[in-house]
């Protein structure tokens, strides 16, 4: 029986096989590293846009206007598209990173966590430098699906506002109309704090003499005055 080493040498000669060059492998590692860096960069931009959207969503304001719980509000207004983009690129990074050198020694979870932390860090720098506003505007102007997703987010908030107050308002209307904003806030306080308004005129509140029942207490703030739950 022919020896294996002879068979292999014959095969190499017959097929005129040559070892792939060092440059080929270097180029491959370069391409993988480049993809990894790009993935981290894109995830960081996604994070920066997430920060920007959270900042712009006026969480505190909306939560004051409505009686949504924080968790519920976050759930309906999350910028899912950025989450999806971030997730895809983080996974791509982890996959590529573990292919280079001896990086398979790190667990997939630790690579993903590390990449996430790094993206959060770079993302916050991008956000603080004001670049997140630029990327957000660019995305809104140029990416149709992004525009649609933002519309859906606003729509969701509007639907829930309307459901809650049974009045035809939209998030945009509330934002642009101080009187409506005041009304929404008043309804919210009536509902949550059990307030009964005597007046919403601040000047009148200064002179009005309020009498409340035993289980109530007087309140007076920039929305008006009256009796509320103790």
């Amino acid at each position, binding site marked *: 029986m022919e020896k294996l*080493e*002879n068979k*292999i040498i014959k095969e*190499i000669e017959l097929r005129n096989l040559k070892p792939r060059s060092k440059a080929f492998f270097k180029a491959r590692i370069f391409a993988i590293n480049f993809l990894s860096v790009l993935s981290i960069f894109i995830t960081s931009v996604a994070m920066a846009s997430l920060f920007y959207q959270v900042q712009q969503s006026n969480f505190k304001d909306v939560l004051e206007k409505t009686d949504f719980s924080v968790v519920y509000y976050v759930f309906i207004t999350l910028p899912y598209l950025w989450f999806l983009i971030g997730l895809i690129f983080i996974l791509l990074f982890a996959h590529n990173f573990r292919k280079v050198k001896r990086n398979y020694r790190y667990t997939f979870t630790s690579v993903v966590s590390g990449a996430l932390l790094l993206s959060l860090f770079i993302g916050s720098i991008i956000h603080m430098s004001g670049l997140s506003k630029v990327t957000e505007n660019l995305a809104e102007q140029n990416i149709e699906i992004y525009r649609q997703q933002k519309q859906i987010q606003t729509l969701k908030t509007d639907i829930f506002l309307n459901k809650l107050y049974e009045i035809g308002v939209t998030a945009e209307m509330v934002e642009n109309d101080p009187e409506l904003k005041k009304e929404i806030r008043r309804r919210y306080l009536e509902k949550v704090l059990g307030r009964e308004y005597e007046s919403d005129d601040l000047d009148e509140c200064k002179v009005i003499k309020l009498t409340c029942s035993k289980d109530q207490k007087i309140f007076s703030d920039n929305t008006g005055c009256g009796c509320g739950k103790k």
Partner: protein
Amino acid sequence: VIEEYRRKTDEEVAEKVAEHPELIAILVQRYEVKLESYIRRISGLSFEDRQDLLQEVFISVYENINSFDPDLRFSSWVYRICHNKTINEWKKNKKKEGDISIDENTKPFVDSLYNENNIEKDIEQNISKEVLSKVLRNIKIEYREVLILKFFDGYSYDEISDIIQKPKNTVGTMVSRARQSFKAEFDKINKK
């Protein structure tokens, strides 16, 4: 050239293979038997299939010799190539998998399995080749592989990690689960 390099280490030979293709013969001679046993123990492939696979492994070693990382032991690298090819071949031919064949003395394997293992010594240490082959055949291929690398070929966790490209801790967990699986399968066969 071959004679000149015969006494050199694997790593030194590997470094010169691209320049002198005939040096691949030295590496083939050094690893042919080990890799053939490895393929036989984990895959259950026929003799002809094993020979074809072995040839593919060495051709791949030759073609990719410039990607060999000197930080790694050559044996880990060549086993890694063999591992990848064997697993691919096994996946392709899963349905016609033959018997796992253990030709070697089983005692060192069983001894080292128990010495590292805190499973109670309730298994006779002198397991026959047939029983051992049957037990190995019935456990998952990834468990079978780590058991063979650890207890037949005597590789460390670090080396197994380099071969199967998984973190060292994962290898530790796999070995531990593989032992449990081995014991459970052995008990099942024994009861019959």
